[in-house]
């Protein structure tokens, strides 16, 4: 089919075998690829026993998927998925890397990894040559060191083939090896598919890395002439409509989100406003960036920046840091010094920790220390806001599961429950400091000021919890809805390259590649709701360690109902009545009941009647 190979590579790490698996074009038409395909594959394979599948056990699958826009539309993304050790549902976790293109060039739409290896291995794929290789020498290595070793291991022989690109890798650091639930699947030096916690899934399979080299072309497009024309137009349009990304990347938000929009996490979200002008893109460009333009594959936008800092003779290398890293490892920990949070971002990259999820749990721990819930005896050292050394030590303790790090390695939600148990407190006495939704720490865009993009139900109704790239919202048939996010994560294209580009243009691009006749209406009325409905049911099935009750967990974290203490939006807070009203409206417009459980009619309309028994299981558990 145009735009697809209709084929996945399936590798079983228990037996070391592999095979090609055909996927019917009708499945792609129903779920596109990436996130939608992940939900469908997981449902098909594990749906009947979902509640008992341990995300960190050999039964879980690790999915590495492209979509019909991958490699065609400007910019690049790849979706990593599986049963999430954070939500116990399905998260489509996006990461930028040319490995997405290599997978397609190798002749696959994606890679499915099943089972688990006894000893550390890495997967090497060169077209139809698939090898499960020994990784005992790579196990334990941190990012930069690992990438150098891998590069030497898979070097192209220039004498035989001429100079070719360096085969790219997905990998985990020590955190993933140690099953830390805030571990991403990393790519390049500084990227991670963070939401979902799939680094821990990879670690549980004893899989250190996946290297892919594709020699062939991408699948043909349906209309080459139109494709080239539209693509060239977009390459001009995208950077011109979003020039600030090119100049400053997301670091432009450090000051803008904090000062102008009052939506930035400060000291575990106790505040969302600041007036520190030095905590800005300008200080990064003058103190930190050594190269302004660093692009991912096929990207004209170039939002990454190469950052190097030197603190006490130690060098730290990272990207940006992008807004989320800076906010979570900077202001959220009370650190406003650009060099210090750049270093923390580099430390997180290298250890294989997600900066958002780990910054969330570290901020949580700092506040517990401030409030006296955690003490020096619990931690071994002081946790004071703004203390770079304490923060960097805690990152290491989490990655290696040492001391209190062992508890925090479970992520904010699970850590809160454990700490409550440790301290003989009621769960809600600790959960009130946990700024998370359904096991996922909330991205660095708050809702209280209503001046930023997330709506009051953004994280309440998202099927990916606190994921700031998959927020829910109204009106339902617009980019505010989570359907739009399900679409771009399933077409597998970078959200930033869609900013200020009309949906019609993007759908037209999809049709030019695939030869389909999709329209915007189908996106919002069928495709998006279908993917969200499937994800919602799997999220509500949950288990085995954690289950969600819509009556309790479809809500904002308690902190979002506390009034903002400072700034132009001082006094503004989430409104429980408003949230309740919007939630019911949003669910109803998706064809779900007032508890967000998809109705029979909706399942039938979306071609998902096979989910009926699963919905019954959810109802039975909830006693409704």
């Amino acid at each position, binding site marked *: 089919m145009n735009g697809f190979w209709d084929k996945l590579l399936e590798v079983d790490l228990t037996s070391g075998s592999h095979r090609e698996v055909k996927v019917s074009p009708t499945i792609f038409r129903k779920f596109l690829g990436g996130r939608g395909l992940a939900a469908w594959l997981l449902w098909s394979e594990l749906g009947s026993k979902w509640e008992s599948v341990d995300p960190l056990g050999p039964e879980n699958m690790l999915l590495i998927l492209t979509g019909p826009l991958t*490699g065609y539309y400007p910019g690049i993304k790849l979706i990593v998925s599986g049963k999430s050790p954070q939500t116990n549902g399905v998260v489509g976790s996006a990461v930028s890397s040319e490995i997405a293109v290599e997978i397609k060039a190798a002749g696959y739409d994606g890679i499915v990894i099943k089972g688990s290896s006894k000893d550390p291995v890495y997967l090497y794929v060169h077209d139809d040559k698939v090898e499960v290789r020994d990784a005992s020498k790579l196990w334990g290595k941190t990012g930069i060191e690992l990438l150098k070793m891998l590069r030497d291991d898979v070097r192209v022989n220039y004498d035989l083939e001429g100079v070719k*690109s360096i085969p790219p890798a997905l990998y985990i650091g020590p955190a993933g090896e140690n099953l830390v639930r805030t571990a991403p699947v990393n790519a390049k030096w500084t990227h991670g598919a963070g939401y979902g916690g799939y680094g821990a899934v990879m670690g549980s399979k004893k899989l250190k890395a996946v290297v892919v080299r594709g020699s062939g072309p991408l699948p043909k497009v349906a209309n080459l002439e139109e494709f080239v024309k539209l693509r060239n137009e977009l390459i001009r349009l995208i*950077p011109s409509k979003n020039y600030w990304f090119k100049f400053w990347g997301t670091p432009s938000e450090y000051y803008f989100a904090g000062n102008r929009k009052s939506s930035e996490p400060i000291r575990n979200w106790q505040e969302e406003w600041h007036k520190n002008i030095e905590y800005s893109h300008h200080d990064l460009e003058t103190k930190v960036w050594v190269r302004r333009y660093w692009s991912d*594959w096929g990207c004209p936008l170039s939002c990454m920046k190469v950052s190097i800092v030197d603190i006490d003779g130690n*060098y730290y*290398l990272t990207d940006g840091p992008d807004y989320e890293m800076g906010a979570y490892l900077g202001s959220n920990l009370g650190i406003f010094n650009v060099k210090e949070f750049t270093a923390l971002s580099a430390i997180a990259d290298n250890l294989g920790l997600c900066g958002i999820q780990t910054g969330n749990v570290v901020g949580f721990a700092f506040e517990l220390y401030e409030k006296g819930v955690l003490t020096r005896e619990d931690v071994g050292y002081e946790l004071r806001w703004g203390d770079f050394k304490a923060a960097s030590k805690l990152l290491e303790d989490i990655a290696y599961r040492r001391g209190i790090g062992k508890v925090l390695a479970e992520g904010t939600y699970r850590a809160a429950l454990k700490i409550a148990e440790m301290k003989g407190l009621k769960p809600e006495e600790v959960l009130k400091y946990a700024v998370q939704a359904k096991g996922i720490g909330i991205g660095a865009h708050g809702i209280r000021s209503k001046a930023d993009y997330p709506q009051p139900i953004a994280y309440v109704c998202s099927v990916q919890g606190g994921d700031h790239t998959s927020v829910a919202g109204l009106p339902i048939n617009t980019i505010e809805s989570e359907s739009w996010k399900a679409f771009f994560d399933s077409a597998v294209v970078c959200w930033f390259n869609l900013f200020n580009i009309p949906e019609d243009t993007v759908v037209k691009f999809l049709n030019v590649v695939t030869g389909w006749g999709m329209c915007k209406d189908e996106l919002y009325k069928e495709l998006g709701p279908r993917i969200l409905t499937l994800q919602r049911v799997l999220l509500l099935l949950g288990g085995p360690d954690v289950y969600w009750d819509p009556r309790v967990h479809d809500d904002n974290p308690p902190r979002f109902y506390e009034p903002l203490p400072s700034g132009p939006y001082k006094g503004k807070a989430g409104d429980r009545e408003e949230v309740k009203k919007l939630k019911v409206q949003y669910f109803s417009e998706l064809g779900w009941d007032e508890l967000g459980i998809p109705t029979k009619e909706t399942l039938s309309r979306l071609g998902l009647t096979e989910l009926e028994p699963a919905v019954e299981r959810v109802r039975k558990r909830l006693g409704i």
Partner: protein
Amino acid sequence: MSQLWIFRDFDKCSGCRLCEIACSLRHEGVVWPEASRITVLEFAPGIAIPHTCVQCYDYPCVKACPTNALYVDGKTGAVLVDTGRCTLCGACVRVCPARVPKVVKGRNYVLICDLCGGEPECVKACKEAGFNALELVPKPEKAYVDPYITLPEVVASKLSSKVYKGFSKEVLGL
């Protein structure tokens, strides 16, 4: 008209590969990075080396070809491949100090930059995206060209020492 040359500004390359995509679309009618006549190698953040033919004044590849499959386009100075004559023996690859000719699965002849007959698509793509790391210029004299006849690792190592200073070895391992 003088012959042409693609100047590569290593300080400006963002590693985006838009050049590779444009090249493969032009020559192969599909997105096919491996078959691009320009190849970007990203050795470290910000150390991306666009690698392609620099049209050596003595054309060792042309001289080494046992089947006379390679010849010079007098107008542009590019090395052209007679696809019917090329046997993929690899002599040109081994004799090229920069290992530029590419042997690619699915093509039974080597791939070398042909300067798109005088209007290189890679240069256009780089300009469209606003990076300007590639510039089309009249072919400079031999002494200007010669230092560019080298492997991407060599360029990366020098560039990295400049950008990363003392940290270069640790990041790059080169």
